[in-house]
């Protein structure tokens, strides 16, 4: 199978983006969520009577962080659809 250089570079970039984009996003979000959860747990340990409110706030914060990963997940599916199959 022969490719032009431009096509090859395009496919290389596409493959790298599909393969690495989501993991990078997940690494960042996992670190962020870990910090958020750790902070919330600390707050709950210090003030158990505020646990309910802290938990609500934590869930919201986690959802915001999570949504960034999900954006990249949607992009991942967009890009994956453009990858050629072996036959092509």
């Amino acid at each position, binding site marked *: 199978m022969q490719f032009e250089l431009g096509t090859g570079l395009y496919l290389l970039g596409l493959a790298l983006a599909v393969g690495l984009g989501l993991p990078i996003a997940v690494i960042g979000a996992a670190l962020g969520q870990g910090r958020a959860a750790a902070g919330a747990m600390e707050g709950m340990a210090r003030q158990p009577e505020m646990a309910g409110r802290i938990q609500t706030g934590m869930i*919201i914060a986690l959802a915001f962080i999570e949504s960034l990963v999900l954006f990249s997940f949607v992009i991942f599916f967009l890009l994956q659809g453009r990858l050629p199959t072996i036959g092509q």
Partner: protein
Amino acid sequence: MEEHHVSPWVFAFFAGIAAVVLVIFALLSTRNLQKRPGRLQNFAEAIYEFFDNLAVSVVGEHGRKYVPLAGTLFLFILISNLMGLIPPGLAPTATLNTTIPLAVIVILYVQYESIRARGIVGYFKHFARWGEVPAPISPLLFVIEVVSELAKPVSLSVRLYANMFGKEQVALALITALAVPIFKSAYVPLPIQFPVLMLGLLVGFVQAFVFSILTLIYLALATEHHDEHHGESAHAH
């Protein structure tokens, strides 16, 4: 967008089922109201009370009137999400055709409430943070605030959609990657996707809750008065 290979009407059909389930539940639980509630009425009251407390804690005392909106959104999205876990069903929330209208309804209502709380001039002043920041910065802030207001429905709808769609895709990937090569069929009763579906149960609850609490937070931001204190709801984007 990599969409499902089924007609959008299938999703509309399941969304309709979710709505019908909700209506039947509401009718049954309020048909015979009593001082000492029965099982169904008790359940409905518990849900309502939960959202009542939530609305008051997030929005403040005037947040009581938003309970029906937030509660209905939660129940509808929850039923929709859980419908995807029952074999012949599909989650209507796993398509943007369902989530975008929900988010647009929410955001239009937020604008309406904001205008009602502040007046049309105050509405635009709020976008520019007029009086809160030095006057030269206001036009810049106006642009930023408008963009962030427009980003709200996008993030609201894409978050819900991507969660449900992603769960289905991961389950599908597990089935096609493991069950199909081994058994030459996607219909063998081998529950490889079982952990994903358990996760889907959790995600379905959390996302429904997040959607409705974000609705309440947006309403709180849109209708807040300066004398009131909003600790946890500030700066939520």
